[in-house]
């Protein structure tokens, strides 16, 4: 099957050529408020990063905590049910970009 490759080999080195844009580099980017690399996150964490159920809300979280969590999952220092499987290939720049985006959103209590 497609996914039978649960690899846990050396982490920390982003795939060659995986350097994606940090920030909104394109002309006319004012309309692209959400970085394309953050789009998948909300399918589980809820629209705008505000979750309805057991999966944590990420909108409005402290940027340093989001950044540390993503790095922890990526580098294997932090354990979770699924995040370690989803963020392994993220570059440092992508983690900064995603963390900054969700930290800047308004959380449910605010």
């Amino acid at each position, binding site marked *: *099957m*497609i*996914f*039978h*490759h*649960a*690899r*846990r*080999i*050396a*982490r920390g080195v982003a*795939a060659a050529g*995986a*350097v*994606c*844009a*940090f*920030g909104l*580099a*394109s*002309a*006319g980017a004012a*309309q*692209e*408020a*959400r970085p*394309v*690399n953050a*789009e*998948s*996150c*909300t*399918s*589980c*964490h*809820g*629209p705008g990063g505000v*979750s*309805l*159920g*057991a*999966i944590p809300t990420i909108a409005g979280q402290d940027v340093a905590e989001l950044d540390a969590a993503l790095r922890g999952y990526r580098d294997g220092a932090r354990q979770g*049910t*699924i995040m370690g*499987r*989803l*963020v*392994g*290939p*993220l570059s440092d*720049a*992508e983690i*900064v970009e995603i963390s900054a985006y969700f930290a800047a959103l308004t959380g449910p209590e605010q």
Partner: protein
Amino acid sequence: MSARLTRRQTLGYAGAALSAPLLSAPALAQGSAHVVVIGGGFGGASAARSLRRVAPDIRVTLVTDAPEFSTCPFSNLVIAGLREISEITFSYDALRAEGVEVRVDPAAALAPDRREVVLQSGDRLAYDRAIVSPGIDFVWDALPGGNPGMAASLPHAWKAGAQTLMLRDQIQAMPEGGTVIIAPPDNPFRCPPGPYERASLVAHYLSQHNPSAKVLIVDGKNQFSKQSLFTEGWEALYPGMISFVPFSDHGGLSAIDAGARRIETYFESFEADVINLIPPQSAASIVRDAGLTGTGLWCEIDGLTFESREAEHVHVIGDAAIVGDMPKSGFSASTQGKACAHAVAALLAQRTPERAYLMNTCYSLVGPEYGISVAGVYRSETGNNRLSSLPDSGGTSEAGDLPQLRRDEADYARGWYANITQELFGA
């Protein structure tokens, strides 16, 4: 960081200059562009909503078959009596409120040469770009004596709605000690773990209401998604109730007697009280008729923009497309819809689309409090439709006797469903 930004900007402008001279008048000002989205499921709703958010100046029309959409994800809970169909059925009101023009008028034809979609009513919609997410059709010819009428007594329940309820009702009406056959096709097909979640939740229902009944999976393949995790769960929750008959043990279907509810295979024949016959599948007929599947059954696309390799200005997402290693799942379709919206907005503004980090997660419920998952991560890239699973990522939940993990993943499965349906259809 700023060095990367500068380099990326330079590359982006260079690319744009090569593909379309910046000083020449663009064919379409973004403000007047019209995108027609075909399909009101996970891919289409995601693309339409995302496009309104990413590029509010673009006019978006969503063409769909019905005023409401019932999701295939969580339809196995309806079959098992754990949810009502109303709880997995959604309207398009929230899309309308965001400025998506919703046409409940099935798309009858797609004419890429005229950049036009023809609706069943005869109305014609001109587009600058089309995003097509029509899902699957069944290849009845691939079954012995196969025809669509078989679904009237042997429900596929592989498109959610009336078929889901038919299968539920048949299982509930089954005699004591009866047998349910689930007959999944070979790969590729919509929702690779779906038949096995279905077997699990049917067994959950039977264990409470008809405990001497059996579930038999007569499979068109030898292995399936999350197989060791499912098998482990079946032994823990429903010992002896579910049997898996791989293709190599039966050799394929040779005859189907819908009236007698019997299937013959090359090595063995099987009788049952309920047969859930899930036929082989292809991309929906609208894209096959438009020539978008070439000589095959599925649409090949550019891995960065999802643009068809057979027709310009038509982007195909979701189950109808072969998107590299991404499985045919609602989550994948939704992810692709978002990335495709970014790409289409960029193309209409004469910009070079950015590469995207794409995720998929498929949760399955082996029981109401027993969840498992498989995940994959991909990067969109132009050229050859690879979208390979990235190294150092993806894979299934840990195996073993881990009750807390199974409970957590069951909670997360419900949380995922609540959030993705809210994102697609919620206000």
